[in-house]
Each structure stands twice: as C-alpha cells, then as structure tokens.
C-alpha cells in the first residue's frame, strides 16, 4: 500500500505546528500552537494546564498555616515573595503589625530572591539565544544566594520561612556577613554579564525592535513587572503601594521607553543593581527584637474580603482571600504575573519569525507553575 505524499508549499499555505509541551525554550510544560506562513508567525495560541494542580481548590480545605506551603509552589523562583504576600494578607485581615525586625529581613530576603530570580533568567535567556556560557555564569553566582537562604531559612529553594506573624525562626548569625560578602562579590561579577551579553551584537540584533509592546497595550494586557516597565508602564508596587521597609529605602524605579525585548532585558539588568542598593541600605540596619508575633494555633480570619498586592520578580502578585469567619478560607485567588504576561505573547509575536518567539518568550520570563497554578 502506498500513499501519495503531498508536497505543501509552506510559503503559500498556512501550517499549524505544536511547540511544546516538551520544548527547552518554554522552560516547562507549556504548549504553544503556532500558525505559520513560511517562517513568519501569524498566531500563537498558548495551551496551559499541563501542570495545573488546583491550588485554589486545595486551599479551600486547608488551614491558613497549611496554605502557606502551597504559595511557594506557584512561582518557585520568587518563593519567598509569594509566601510573604500570603502572610501579609492574613496579617492584614487579623490587624497584626509585625515587628520591625521582620519587616526589614523580609525586605532583604525579597531582594535576594529577586536577584536570584533575575540571575537565573539572565542565564536561561542567554542560553535561549545560543550563549551557553551565560548559563554557567548565572548559576555560579546564584549559588551564593542559595547558600544564604539555606543557612537562614533551612531551604535553598522553596523556603516557607515566613509564617503569618513573622518567621519560623530567627536569622542565622552569619546572615549579615554573608549578604555583605555577596554584594561585594556580585558587584564585581555583574559587569561580566554586560561584557558577555548586553553589548553582544548577535543578542542586540535578535532583541532590538523585536516583540514591541506599547504602554497602552501593556496596561490593557496587565503586563507588569520588568516586562511592563520595559514598555514605560510605571507599575512597581514597591513604589506605588509600599509594604514592609520599602518606604524607608531609597531606590529608583527602572523604566525604559523602547518597548522591545532589549528594553525588558535592560530593565532586569538595572534592577539587579537597584536590588543591591536596597540590600546595602538595610544590611547594617536590622533592628533587634522579636522575629515573630505570637499567634493562636488556629487562625480564623474575620468575615470579609482581603486583597494584597506585592511586587514579585515577574510582576504583580496578588492574593485575594474571601473569609466566612471559619478556619478554612471560603475562596482563595492568586493573581499570578506570568499568567497575565503570557496573554500578550500572541500580540507581540505576530509577524515575527519563529526564532523571535524564543527571544520574546525569554524576555517575558514566564514560569509555568505560576501560569497553571
């Protein structure tokens, strides 16, 4: 039996192919259905849900302390920030003011998390564009932050160090020393990143003018974080709605007006410097005092709606809790930055080449568990 093979002229006819769910540049299990004409992308349709775990549903039958451990499994690269957003919501509902020591240390751990996340993003972004060396540079430096986490929080990756009311334990005596050492080390190493990638002609050719997203589009699509700020959308919640010690430190909100992939890249590079500035201002000023407020063993939130927004490494992370006054929440919603950022990928990629999709996806820096929840 023979079947006649048909020759399709890909330049003439639109073809549809799957990219993923197992594809190295999607950084996880995400399937993108591409409509192609030749090498030009006409449409990108993301298919999500390959690692959907139903965290919002699970939360409805868990106590407030238990839910905490689900939050760092959303965006695992900003685990601490997610924990903290959740704790802030519970603390806000119970009208608890955490001690100053907790506020300052949380801010510092936030910035360390952001640095570690941006380092890994830089590493994988370089690799997406064909620069294998970047991966080793990024991971080498990230290791120093993970060591600090391991010592203080007991875990390198999914810390769950926060708890409603403060921390599980006090910081390690070496914490300040280690952070100072890291800043000195990384200030020397960050220029290497620029030498290797920022000024690289191949990298500039592949990102400048690619994946345009205007400010109005960024706002309408809810693209926040460094990706939104690359389009001049002033959305840094650390400035707009300060929490913890962010109103006491001086830092700049990094904004760029070019609106392309390179702008999003440069925002993250500059944010790493700003994060180090914040750490430097706080490292010698950790107030003495308790590391947690004493909480009741069973937490019951008063009836009502509670919402908290924080700036995670990828953008705005929101926690929305509806309580009916019981020990389980009635409804929990996590507004995840990657989910909203992903919705703009179709708009940004239309008319570009397949290879540009990789660069655009890398510049959006999405994390799949954060999309699927």
């Amino acid at each position, binding site marked *: 039996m023979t079947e006649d093979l048909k020759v399709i002229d890909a330049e003439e006819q639109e073809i549809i192919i799957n990219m993923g769910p197992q594809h190295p540049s999607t950084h996880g299990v995400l399937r993108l259905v591409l409509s192609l004409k030749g090498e030009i992308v006409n449409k990108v349709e993301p298919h*999500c*849900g390959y690692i*959907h775990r*139903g965290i*919002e*549903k699970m939360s409805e039958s868990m106590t407030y302390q238990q839910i905490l451990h689900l939050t760092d499994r959303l965006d695992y690269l900003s685990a601490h920030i997610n924990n903290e957003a959740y704790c802030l919501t519970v603390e*806000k509902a119970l009208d608890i003011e955490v001690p100053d020591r907790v506020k300052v240390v949380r801010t510092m751990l936030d910035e360390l998390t952001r640095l570690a996340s941006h380092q890994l993003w830089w590493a994988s972004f370089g690799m997406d564009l064909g620069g294998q060396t970047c991966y080793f540079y990024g991971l080498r430096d990230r290791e120093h932050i993970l060591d600090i986490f391991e010592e203080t929080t007991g875990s390198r990756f999914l810390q769950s160090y926060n708890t409603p009311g403060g921390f599980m334990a006090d910081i390690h005596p070496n914490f300040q020393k280690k952070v100072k050492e890291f800043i000195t080390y990384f200030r020397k190493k960050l220029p290497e990143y620029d030498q290797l990638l920022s000024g690289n002609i191949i990298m500039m050719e592949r990102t400048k003018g690619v994946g345009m997203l205007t400010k*109005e*589009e960024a*706002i*309408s*699509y*809810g693209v926040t974080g460094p990706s939104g700020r690359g389009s001049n*959308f*002033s*959305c840094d919640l650390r400035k*707009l709605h300060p929490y913890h010690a962010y109103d006491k430190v001086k830092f700049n909100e990094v904004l760029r007006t070019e609106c392309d992939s390179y702008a999003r890249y440069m925002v993250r590079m500059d944010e790493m410097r700003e994060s180090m500035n914040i750490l430097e201002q706080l490292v010698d000023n950790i107030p003495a005092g308790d590391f947690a407020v004493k909480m009741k063993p069973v937490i019951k939130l008063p009836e*009502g*709606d*509670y*919402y908290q*927004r924080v700036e995670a490494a990828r953008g*705005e992370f*929101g926690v*929305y809790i*509806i309580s009916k006054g019981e020990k389980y929440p009635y*409804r929990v*919603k996590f*507004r995840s930055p990657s*989910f*909203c950022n*992903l*919705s*703009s990928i179709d708009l940004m990629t239309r008319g570009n080449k397949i290879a540009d999709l990789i660069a655009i996806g890398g510049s959006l820096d999405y994390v799949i568990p954060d999309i*699927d929840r």
Partner: protein
Amino acid sequence: MTNQELRDSIGKIEPTATFEEGKQYLNVFVTPEKWYNLAKQLKESKELGFDYLFNLTGVDYGDNLGVVYHLESTTFHHSVVVKVLTNRQTPEIPTICDIWRTAEFHEREVFDFFGIIFTNHPDLRRMFLDDDWKGYPLRKDYDPSQNQRY
C-alpha cells in the same frame, strides 16, 4: 479620588449600582445587564480612568455565582472593586475583554472553573482542564467522582 467621590461619579453613570464600603476598597454591585456599559465608562471617563484590571476572580456565593473585578487607574492611582452577580442556573455575564484585554484569559479561567458564560467572548474554551472535563470544579457543589477516569 476618595471613595466618596468615586461613589458619586459611579452613581451618576449607573444609578442602579449599589455600594458597600469595604475594609480596603470601595465595592460596587451591578447587574450583568448594566455591567458592560458601566465598564466602558469606567475606562473611558476622563476623571475615573480605570485603565488597569489587576485581578478578575470568579466566586461561588452559594445562591449566586459572581465575578469580582479589581480595577485601578494608572494615572490617579485610585482603585475600585466591582462585583457582578448572576444566577446559578443560567450564569451569563457580558465579556469585557475588548475593554481590558487581560480579561480574555481570566474569563476563560472563570468559565473553566465556574461555568460562567461570558457572552460575546471571542474564544470561550476551557483554560486549564481538558475539553471533555465534566462539571466546574470550583463550584461548591462539584462532585469529583464524575471525573475518575484513570
């Protein structure tokens, strides 16, 4: 704008809207029929300028299903929460994804988990679950046994 001023301006646009002062934001209740027009005005009005939809949540309120919209203005930095309730038997709410584009994915997610039909939505399919999934898992009366396939 303060919450009182927001209340006055929204009340002028939509006289049937009811208000409730929340702990954090001003809550506005509006019926599905009036919602699309109000949404358009909220975005386009010069004084209100709610151009950023930062969250969209589906909620099962027991007797009703509802959608909660969190809105912010990026110029004036004031926020408002709009709650639209619909009945359980034929849950229908007009889509607002042509006003705030981020709603397109959010509404698909709410459809997936609550079965709320967003009328005029360009591509209303399940977002995370399989197309042949039975029931809407985040509804409080969902029975998980109907999907034990493996």
